Structures are given as C-alpha cells and as structure tokens.
C-alpha cells in the first residue's frame, strides 16, 4: 500500500508545474519561431502533467495519470498536425516567422 503524501509536498510539485506552465507561456508569447512556439505549448503540457499526477497521487486516484495519457495523445496529434502545417507554411513563405502569416489580419 502506498504511503500517504503530505500537503506541503504536493505544494512543491504544484509550484514546479506552475513554473513550467508560466515559463512555457512566456515562451509561447515571446518566441516568433512557429516550431519553438509549439515546443513551448508542449512545455505547458509538461507542467499540467506534473500537476495531474501529483494531485492524483495525493488522493490515490489514478485518473490523474490517465489524464496524462490523454495529454500525450493530444500532444502527439498536435505535433503531427502542427508540424504538417508548419511544413506547408514554410513551403509557401520560406520562413517560420509567425508574424509573416498575417494575411487574414485586418
């Protein structure tokens, strides 16, 4: 049987997940390379994954880990599609600058 898990330990994990989320967000915002932007979203996924598992561990609930499986799924799907799109866009404009694709902008 698993041992219990102190709330303060949980706080530690959550803070780490928050740090990763925040840094990922900053990255997503400041970077202009499409691929790096996607990497930053993956980073935010990592943060979320840690939080899921930590809270699941705290409650002895394995749904948290199941969620991480879904995150993996989504990340994989996203990677496939997003990268396909990036390839397509790169073919068109020969650049990865997100700001270069602003044709639909007002």
């Amino acid at each position: 049987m698993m041992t219990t898990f102190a709330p303060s330990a949980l706080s530690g994990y959550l803070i780490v997940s928050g740090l990763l989320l925040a840094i990922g967000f900053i990255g997503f915002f400041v970077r202009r390379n499409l691929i790096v932007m996607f990497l930053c979203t993956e980073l935010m996924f990592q943060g979320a994954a840690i939080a899921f598992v930590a809270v699941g561990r705290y409650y002895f609930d394995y749904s948290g880990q199941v969620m991480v499986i879904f995150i993996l799924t989504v990340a994989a799907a996203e990677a496939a599609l997003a990268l396909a799109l990036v390839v397509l866009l790169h073919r068109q404009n020969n650049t990865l600058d997100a700001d270069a694709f602003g044709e639909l902008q007002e």
Partner: protein
Amino acid sequence: MDLFLPYIACVTLALTMYAALRPSPLSMQVTMVAIGVAASGWLIGIVTGSLSAFNEVSHGIFFIIFSLCAVAAAIRMVTHERPIYCALYFVLIVVSTAGLLLMLEAEFMAFALIIVYAGAILITYMFVLMLANQAENPEEPYSQAIYDRIPREPAAAVAIGFLLLCLLTGTVTGGASSLPPEGDGTSQWYVLEKLSHQFETNVLEIAPDFAWPPISEDGHVIQFGSSGPYIVSGDGTVLELDEAMLPTNTQMVGWSLVNDFPVTIELAGVILLMAMFGAAVLARRAIELTEKEKRKVILGHDSEEVGDDR
C-alpha cells in the same frame, strides 16, 4: 513578511526571465539561468517548508534536483535563440519531468513520457526543424534568423506570465491547508477485489486452505479492521491481507483507463487517426503536371491528336 516571500521570489524570477530574454552573451545567459534557478529553488523551498515533508529524504533531494533541472532547462529553452537547442533542452525537461513522475510513484507514466515525448514527438520536431531551418554558420554570432533572435514584447509576456505564477503560488500556499483530506488508499483494495482471479491466486498463495470465496458485506469482500484489511471466508476464517497483494501502480492505471474512461480512450484513438490523416493530407505536395503529362495519365498513352478538342 513571510506572506510576501514567495512573491518576492516570483518577482526575482520574472526579472531574471526578462533579462534572459534580451539578446546577450553566453556568460550573461548562464548567470541569468543560475539566478533563475536559485530563485525557483527558493520559491520551492518556501512552499515546501522542509525535506521532512517527503516520505523519504531521498525523495526530497531528488525532487529538488529534478525540479531545478526542469526549470533551468525550461528557461534555457525559452531563451535560446537556436531552435535545435530549444528542442534538445526540451528533451532535458521531459527527462526531468519523468524523474518527478517517478518520485510520484507513477513509473508507467514516467517511462511512457520518455518513450513518447523524447523518443517520438521530439524526434519529429527535430526533423522538421532541420528540414525548415537553413544551415547556418555556427561561428557567426548572429547567424540565426531575425525572428529567432528578437523576442516579441518580452515585458508584457513576463508580466502576464508571472502574474499567473504569483496567482498559482498564492493559490498553492494559501490553499494547501484548505484541501480536502487526502485519500486513504482503500480504493486500491477495492480494485483488487474486482481483479478476482489475481486476488484468488494471491490469497491462496498465502493461505492455501482458505475457503474461497470470502463472504461479502455491504457489497465489499474486503473489510477494514483496526490492524488493516482482512477477509472472512464462508466458514468464518479471518485472513489478514498483506500489502504485497495489491495491484501494481501500472495495473491501477490500466484499470482506471479501461474501467473509468472506456469511451475517452476510444476517442483518443480516433483523434490520433484523424491527426494522422490530417498530417498526410496537409503535408502532401501538389505535383505540377503539364498538359501532356495529364493526358498521359488520363488516357494511358502519349497521343497528341486524341482528346484535343480545344
């Protein structure tokens, strides 16, 4: 004053991030990462209190190591101007995360993360990066594309990002005490109950003369006494259960997956399939054919006269 310490750490981290985001020489970058890691460590320390919070001290130490590693790699990933390095730092993050998951006794997830992320997704990223990025001269300091070197509005991003972080910090520090009571682990025993074959095998291994099946009470076979869980056989024999009998963590995840989320997992499968199709359709390159070639494809032969009805 103690109340504000986490926020001071957050602000320090924010300023560091801001400095790190400016284009600067390597030494400066390293310094900034160091300061950032220190600030993060401080923050984590404040929140966690002491290593005694963890079940084992080693857990605490590994937690610190992995988390600081992850933060350092994250800062570096976000600030590094070369996308390839970003991807590599991300691998480091994934590995650190996997370590943290191990600390959380989620072995399956930890390894799955490494396999799927580091092994599959990141490789795809690398391929695309290499495909898209022109080879540059590594000697040249500013050979990267301009959009990789100049960040967009770092101040605003850092401000909002750390507002978010402060909020999370506030929530975590202020909210830990108000969390509902932690679980008692009985759910695992109930899962064991349902894995009846494994349960029977394990029980009969310990007590071969136990009169299977045990009596159920209130819908549950396993009862909890003062000294732990036990079962009662049909003839009144009481058997104390051992923790070793419990299903493993991986088993538990699998159980949860197929028992609690059967439809969702189907959906996940569909999503993946669609993503595959989507990627195939999107990345397909239209082949430019001349009139002649088209005619050849359609008619199956290379005739000039036939079908020319213009």
